[in-house]
């Protein structure tokens, strides 16, 4: 059964068209990642699904039923920002939302235990990782069949991110359908069964991570690190070039011919190259190939 079907969904803010006709299907029990840069339309789409934000046209079906205030209860939502009240304890926050959603109070104790949450600690005293866990627990209070996670690990340190990922994997093992919005390709690759790439309000590709990577299969990616100068010259010759945190990633058709030319351009511009390697493409490379820009 399809957990979610979206057909020709359009949404505008004044003159700005945020969603330009989204078509999407999420199978029950899968982890589906919505991958795209900031401003691609992910949050708008999620807010339509989880917060009742109005839309201009299109159709949304949740487990076969049109999305209404009633069927919205099938959806649990953990936004990026904490929805916990700072002055309330973890337990009080969960009780509040349980009452709001008319969920059984026994769920609170179960979720506190499952997510190893400090029940008596005030929300403002929690670390970033625990705040995300609390958000997740709140979203699961009324046992929704579809769980939507918006940038679940944004801003978390590596250990907290790993812990959160293992929680998400556990939820998947329990059979829950998860729609994951992220701009971290590692997150999408690590968690998702299928990925939709969204850019400027359109879905530009859907498939498993491997299928998507095959879109760029004929490509290789050259990674260059060091004190780099003349990157504009490289970008002029190789348009699928992005620079991030001192690393230059260049998508090329054939590494064997491109590599000497890249080195030549950089060295002539006065770069000091520390390392250089050729890798298989990632989802980010796919995105780069499809859109001509990076995921940031």
């Amino acid at each position, binding site marked *: 059964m399809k957990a979610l079907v979206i057909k020709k969904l359009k949404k505008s803010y004044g003159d700005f068209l945020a969603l330009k006709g989204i078509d999407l299907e999420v199978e029950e029990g899968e982890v589906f990642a919505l991958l795209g840069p900031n401003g691609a339309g992910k949050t708008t789409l999620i*807010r339509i699904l*989880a*917060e*009742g934000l*109005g839309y201009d046209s299109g159709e949304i079906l949740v487990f076969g039923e049109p999305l209404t*205030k009633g069927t*919205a*209860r099938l959806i649990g*939502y953990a*936004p990026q*920002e*904490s*929805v916990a*009240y700072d*002055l*309330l304890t973890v337990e*009080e926050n969960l*009780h*509040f*939302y349980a*009452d*709001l*959603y*008319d969920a059984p109070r026994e769920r609170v104790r179960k979720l506190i235990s499952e997510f190893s949450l400090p029940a008596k600690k005030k929300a403002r005293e929690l670390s970033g990782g625990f705040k995300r866990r609390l958000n997740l627990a709140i979203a699961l209070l009324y046992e929704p069949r579809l769980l939507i996670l918006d940038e679940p690990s944004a801003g978390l340190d590596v250990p907290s991110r790993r812990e959160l990922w293992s929680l998400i994997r556990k939820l998947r093992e329990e059979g829950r359908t998860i729609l994951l919005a992220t701009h971290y390709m590692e997150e999408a690759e690590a968690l998702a069964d299928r990925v939709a790439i969204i850019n400027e309000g359109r879905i530009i590709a859907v498939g498993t991570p491997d299928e998507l990577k095959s879109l760029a299969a004929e490509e290789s990616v050259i990674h260059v690190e060091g004190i780099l100068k003349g990157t504009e010259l490289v970008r002029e010759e190789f348009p699928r070039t992005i620079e991030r945190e001192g690393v230059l990633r260049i998508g090329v058709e054939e590494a064997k011919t491109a590599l000497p030319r890249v080195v030549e351009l950089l060295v002539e511009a006065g770069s000091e190259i520390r390392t250089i390697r050729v890798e298989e493409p990632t989802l980010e490379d796919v995105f780069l190939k499809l859109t001509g820009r990076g995921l940031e």
Partner: protein
Amino acid sequence: MKARAIKAIIGKDLRETRREKMTIFWIFVFPLMWITLLGGIWGGHSPPITVDLGVVYFNETAAFTAQDVVNIMENVTMNNVHVFNIARYPNESSGVDAVRTGRIDALLVFPRGFGENVSSGLQARVYVYFDRSDPQNYQIVSGVIKGFFSEFEKEMSERKLNITLSYMEKYIPANLAGNFTIDDFRRYLIGLANPLELEEREVRGESPSAIQFYVTSFIGIQFLFATMLMIGSGTLEEIEHGTLRRIAASPATAWDFLAGKMLSTFIVITVSILIGIGYAKLVFGETVFPSALGWLMIFLAAVFSMSLGLAIAMGTRSIKATNAIVNLISMPLLFLAGIVIPASILPEWAKPIANYFPLGTALKSLRLLELYHRPASEILPSIAWVAGSAFGMLLIAVVLYNWAIKRLG
């Protein structure tokens, strides 16, 4: 409406209020400061007023002189308090200067020959200098001085009369007076000298004490500041924190949210009012405890105030702007709506505000009911007006709330 959701919102708000130190200050400590200050300044038993009076007179050798008048004035007391505090000045200009600079309230000048005129039964003049720049003070000071001289004149008239009558008895032949007796003459002359006799009789009225008045003022302050600000900034904090989106997405409706918010705010101000009432009793020995109808009026006024606060908050969608507008509205109303000043002493142009602005109406009715013990039938039209206004303002607030929810970023 979902009772469980409403109860959850009330419980959450009350917990947050209890744990927020600044809220505790504004809701409980600040109003108690008002009662303490206003009660401390105006609430005690007022002693009789003492007038600082300057006098200028000349030494005379007559039987009765200005010095004798001044001595009498120095000994006039009321409830063991001297009515006049006399300062002697050597000449008129130094005394006038003292009035002008506020060192004394008024100056009496007994001109040369005063004692001689009085002693020989002629009319004597006294000059009084007042500073009229403070009309209230002028009214009090001139009333006290003129009152003294009125009594003094009466006493002088009676003495003169008695002297005149004693001469009449001694020197006028009985048959010269025809059918008139000496008693007839006495009564006629008393009527001539003192045509009207005002006799004071005391009534113990039901007028409230200053403390009782200020307890109701404190309730009014709660409407104006606490309720308006609490619900306005409370809702905006939910918007800024992102929790209102979450609540809006839940099965709870806008009415559930508003009912929860309003009831929690009402519970907080009710507790605050009860503390204020108890505090006044404890510290000043007197207070006002509203009747059921009084509480209904408080509730309706609170609904109006909360709706106004919510409407402002939803219109501005900024905590700072809401605080500024609430203060802009509340500060003048504190005075113009008869909250800290009795409506009876307000200028004419401000009286309609006190009478018809719903919070002013509510407070005026509460005072009539609880302080003057007027029958409920007398304030029913006011209750209807406040209830209607509260409902109208609530509708406006709900429309603005729904509009704001749709515009959540």
